């Protein structure tokens, strides 16, 4: 039972990684990182039960919080560019049309 879940999670992690590598837009990659973080949290939780030591579930919860905060920070950065109060980045984004396409 836990073995099946673990294998499914590992496959999902591989798929999310493939999406992060292939892209093509930055938002695909942000979503891939977020998904990957969630799968890591789940893997840690399930792995605890798989090895019959479910002590790490609370740690997995803290991971989920970190993952959430990180994603919100990254999205705030991309949405407003206010992150480092950088005029240059904002200008570059406007000039580049803010597409985020890969090369």
């Amino acid at each position, binding site marked *: 039972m836990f073995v099946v879940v673990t294998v499914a999670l590992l496959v999902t992690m591989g798929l999310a990684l493939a999406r*992060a590598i292939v892209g093509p837009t930055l938002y695909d990659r942000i979503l891939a990182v977020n998904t990957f973080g969630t799968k890591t949290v789940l893997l840690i939780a399930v792995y605890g039960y798989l090895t019959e030591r479910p002590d790490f579930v609370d740690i997995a919860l803290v991971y989920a919080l970190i993952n959430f905060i990180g994603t919100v920070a990254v999205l705030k950065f991309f949405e407003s560019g206010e992150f480092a109060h950088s005029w240059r980045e904002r200008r570059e984004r406007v000039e580049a049309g803010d597409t985020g396409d890969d090369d």
Partner: protein
Amino acid sequence: MEFFVNAFLLALLAATTIAIVRMRRLIATTMLFGIFSLLMAAVFVVLDAVDVAFTEASVGAGISTILMLATLAICGAKQESVPRKQLPAIIVVVVTGAVLLWGVSGLPDVGDPTAPATTHVYKRYVEESGTEIGVPNIVTSVLASYRGYDTLGEVAVIFTAGLGIICLIGAGTGQQRRRRNGNDSGDDV
């Protein structure tokens, strides 16, 4: 099963690393760094090093990603492709990897009862730290009392690093504030 999980995570790690090396868009590279840290955290959990995994996830995937994005916002997110000599780099990497593998082969097995880590001071820490130090958590008593000077040195190092960062960032914000109050042309610094 543990072997399978380990092997799969390490394979993903290798794929991530190759993608990081080949990627030319630095923001995408930053995202992949986040995935790398999360993978490392999962590997650490599988290796039973939960505290290290926790540090890796919070520092590597959390703070580092944000700091790198902040840096890219200032420096620009494009990587110039420069001609490089690759052969010396490959030689250095292969030699370093070989030395590391050779070093790892000399380590005792995981859980080996005759390993140095479980034969010297381990017993005293486990049996007497509760009465000697009065702290129920063995790790805390080791870090804060048995290795107090070591921890003091670490705190001094981190404090120095923090001071350096404050000096650097403080200078940067002053410059930006002046630029913002001036015109919008924003010359590159």
